[in-house]
């Protein structure tokens, strides 16, 4: 057994810095690279792409990255685990195989983890008694049934461990939890048992620290962002994992960024619910048990983590069409910038009434004044400029388009010293909303397909 393994984070979300994973592989030793590409809304975009072309439905940026990075991974024998497969992991794997064949990497093992996409089985699942009620509101899924765009189960580390055991070096998954991508190599390398809850929980904590990329290594770091070196080439976090479940959070020395107790703490509380019950498919981790200790420059030890048995459910993420939104904006300059923006708001609202447009919600904000902090922000006496933002939400697309036509005319018909309309008419956007639910684990089974490049 290895003394420890290094699992590097290479991507915190689809659209994160393209060269971060390249730096992770080239700037120092790592054993595994994990990359997270999926968010709730991503799955519906990918389903739309797949419906147009059955060979699509995954993060195409990842293929562009593989063109550059695959030679390094092969040469250095770094294993890659990513959920870039989206709603079509097998097609994504085939696209990577094409690159590997072209480059002549005979014998390279690739795996796809799938079975999480339940969009086509929803009716059967519902008919056999799975209610898939909204976890937050308790509503029946029938209220959105004909508007559903994607439905995926969140798998944990198990199918990824299976792929590793089949010798895969490149593992492309569908909706595997972000944390599972980091936990899996620890189970595989150290032979952890599926009921060693404390160790599994430690792996999940490592996953939570890795899953948002540089957010654990000096990015978006409130306590000390001014101290962070070389943010233009920030080093993403690396989890150094030990067989007893101890972790060291670190980063490559040559890259920018910063790892200390404060950066790790900020990431630990990110998107956290009840810290005693961080529920994942493999274990329930207790964030109140975590202990941290700085053990060197850019090195923080994570230890004493406690965990408890998993629940009988998988979490399911369903996305559905839920109407439209349109947000317009104009910028008003000094003097009386705020009064001008408020006058513009009054005019638009009267126009909406005059034209008989109906919306579920009309929402105004004054950017540069208090859009972020609302009533908790103190007044600014006479701001230099204020951006007037007005948004509407509703189901009637025609009304949306009429609203979109009302913004630019204000330039010549409303309050003076106004600009910022360069983009022209604001776009009417589809709302894809998110429906969290639970599904009994025995209703779905993850599948692993491993192939060798020939």
């Amino acid at each position, binding site marked *: 057994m290895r003394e420890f393994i290094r699992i590097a984070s290479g991507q915190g979300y689809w659209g994160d810095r393209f060269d971060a994973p390249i730096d992770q592989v080239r700037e120092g030793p790592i054993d595994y690279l994990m990359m997270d590409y999926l968010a*709730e*809304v991503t799955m519906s975009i990918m389903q739309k792409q797949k419906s147009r072309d059955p060979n699509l439905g995954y993060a195409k940026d990842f293929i562009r990255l593989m063109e550059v990075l695959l030679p390094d991974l092969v040469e250095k024998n770094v294993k890659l685990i990513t959920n870039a497969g989206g709603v079509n992991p097998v097609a994504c794997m085939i696209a990577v195989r094409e690159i590997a064949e072209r480059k002549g990497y005979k014998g390279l093992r690739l795996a796809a983890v799938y079975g999480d996409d339940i969009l086509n089985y929803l009716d059967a699942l519902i008919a056999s008694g799975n209610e898939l009620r909204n976890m*937050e509101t308790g509503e029946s899924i029938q209220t959105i049934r004909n508007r559903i765009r994607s439905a995926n189960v969140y798998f944990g580390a198990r199918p990824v461990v299976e792929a590793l055991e089949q010798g895969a070096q490149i593992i492309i998954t569908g909706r595997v939890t972000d944390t599972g991508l980091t936990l899996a190599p620890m189970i595989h390398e150290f032979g952890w048992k599926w009921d060693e809850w404390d160790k599994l929980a430690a792996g999940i904590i490592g996953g939570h620290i890795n899953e948002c990329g540089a957010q654990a290594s000096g990015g*978006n770091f*409130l*306590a000390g962002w001014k101290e962070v070196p070389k943010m233009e080439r920030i080093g993403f976090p690396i989890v150094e994992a030990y067989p007893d479940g101890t972790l060291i959070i670190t980063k490559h020395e040559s890259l920018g960024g910063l790892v200390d107790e*404060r950066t790790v*703490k*900020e*990431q*630990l*509380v*990110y*998107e*956290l*619910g*009840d*810290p*005693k019950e961080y529920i994942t498919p493999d274990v329930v981790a207790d*964030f*109140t*048990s*975590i*202990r*941290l200790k700085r053990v060197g420059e850019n090195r923080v030890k994570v230890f004493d983590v406690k965990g408890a048995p998993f629940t009988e459910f998988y979490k399911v993420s369903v996305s559905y069409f*839920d109407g439209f*939104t349109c*947000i317009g904006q104009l910028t008003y300059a000094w003097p009386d910038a705020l009064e001008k923006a408020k006058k513009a708001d009054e005019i638009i609202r009267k126009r909406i009434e005059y034209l008989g447009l109906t919306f579920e*919600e009309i*929402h105004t*904000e004054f*950017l540069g004044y208090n*859009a*972020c*902090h*609302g*009533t*908790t*922000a103190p007044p600014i006496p006479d701001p230099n400029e204020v951006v007037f*933002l007005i*948004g*509407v*939400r509703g189901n009637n697309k025609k009304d949306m388009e009429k609203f979109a036509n009302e913004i630019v005319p204000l330039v010549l018909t409303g309050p003076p010293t106004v600009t910022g309309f360069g983009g022209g008419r604001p776009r009417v956007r589809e*709302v*894809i*909303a*998110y429906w*969290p639910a639970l599904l009994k684990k025995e209703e779905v089974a993850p599948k692993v397909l491993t192939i060798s490049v020939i």
Partner: protein
Amino acid sequence: MKVQLIKLAHARSGDKGDTANVGIIALKPEYYEILKKEVTPERVKAHFGEMVKGAVQRFEMPNIGALNFLLHNALGGGGTTTLKHDAQGKTISTALLRMEIDVPDDLANF
């Protein structure tokens, strides 16, 4: 004396549907007890007023000197539905750190 929370804590916020979470973390270990005493869910709810339509829950994390708050119905319907500029509640962290709390007069070195 009264000070703004930003003198005692750092923070990060994020979203889960229409619920925002804010974790505030004591800048020095000795500040944690002050945070625990002063930054109650009731006071947080009052600080945000109309901005948080639902309940405020608080969870204690003495191990890292942090308090985690869940602000329910605070994001205008959440992620993709909301009309808010800060759709995912990324800046609610420092909105909470604007809050003023009572600290002992002899608390040195802010």
